[in-house]
């Protein structure tokens, strides 16, 4: 009897355990962290190598960066609301929040690409100086991640269309993307602090 209760408790505990899929994805994020760490190290070394070209003061526009930051921060919390709805099995609410997150991500990407094209049009592309090469590599890699996140989000929106119940597999997929999305927001904190703000001090 007592044994049964313990077994049941252990089983119930087992059910609430995080899926190994999510842990595996977490490990991937950690390796991604090292990629970004490497790119930040490169930027830290090359940030003063202007080769007669413009410095951060001349090429960065803080107001645009501020808006990008606000968009990304907002998209983090809207995805969070989507996850809460997903755990409550409110699929249409979840899909609405995911849609909002998708649009915010798209807005972020649009602003970033506009900034890049402005800089390139003024002759301050990645080929101008080591500083700009490392800037485009670092911020471009983050933008590429955001693009992948958006594709993934579109796929999940497609896969959850018309569903009445979310199985564990789908919840795991949504959880992995939520980790990815929040992780990108953390990387962006480092980008706006160490790339943009540090360069205009």
């Amino acid at each position: 009897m007592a044994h049964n209760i313990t077994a049941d408790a252990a089983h119930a505990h087992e059910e609430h355990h995080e899926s190994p899929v999510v842990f595996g994805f977490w490990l991937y994020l950690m390796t991604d962290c090292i990629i970004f760490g490497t790119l930040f190290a490169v930027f830290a070394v090359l940030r003063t190598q202007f080769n007669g070209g413009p410095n951060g003061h001349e090429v960065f526009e803080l107001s645009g960066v501020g808006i990008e930051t606000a968009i990304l921060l907002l998209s983090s919390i809207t995805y969070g609301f989507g996850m809460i709805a997903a755990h409550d099995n409110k699929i249409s609410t979840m899909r609405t929040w995911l849609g909002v997150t998708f649009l915010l991500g798209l807005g972020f990407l649009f602003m970033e690409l506009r900034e890049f094209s402005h800089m390139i049009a003024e002759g301050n592309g990645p080929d101008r100086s080591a500083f700009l090469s490392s800037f485009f590599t670092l911020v471009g890699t983050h933008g590429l991640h955001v693009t992948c996140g958006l594709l993934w989000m579109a796929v999940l929106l497609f896969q959850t269309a018309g569903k009445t119940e979310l199985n564990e597999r789908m919840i795991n997929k949504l959880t992995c993307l939520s980790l990815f999305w929040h992780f990108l927001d953390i990387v962006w904190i480092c980008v706006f602090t160490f790339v943009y703000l540090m360069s205009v001090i």
Partner: protein
Amino acid sequence: MSDAHTSASGESHGSVGSYLTGFVISVLLTAAAFGLVMAHTFSPSGTAGAITLLAVVQIVVHLIFFLHMNASSEQRWNVMAFAFTVVTVLILVGGTVFIMHDTAINMMSR
């Protein structure tokens, strides 16, 4: 409503309240960082130190409120992997900056 949800399942996927708390703190920290740089209150090195500190605090806030990192046994390996990664990245970035700075001085390229 949302609190009951979290405690009932015991899972760490947050509540509306925790997301909003994290969001408000993040907005304040971000605004503080941008404000410090735009207002030129401190010396350049002082500002750099201050915004670095703000970034570290904000990362921790995001980890706790958005990525739901905590000290529970269920999260132990996640936290362990994260700690290992943080050490790796610190060695990577710190080591690179240290070596390249030293090289630059010895080569008299600055």
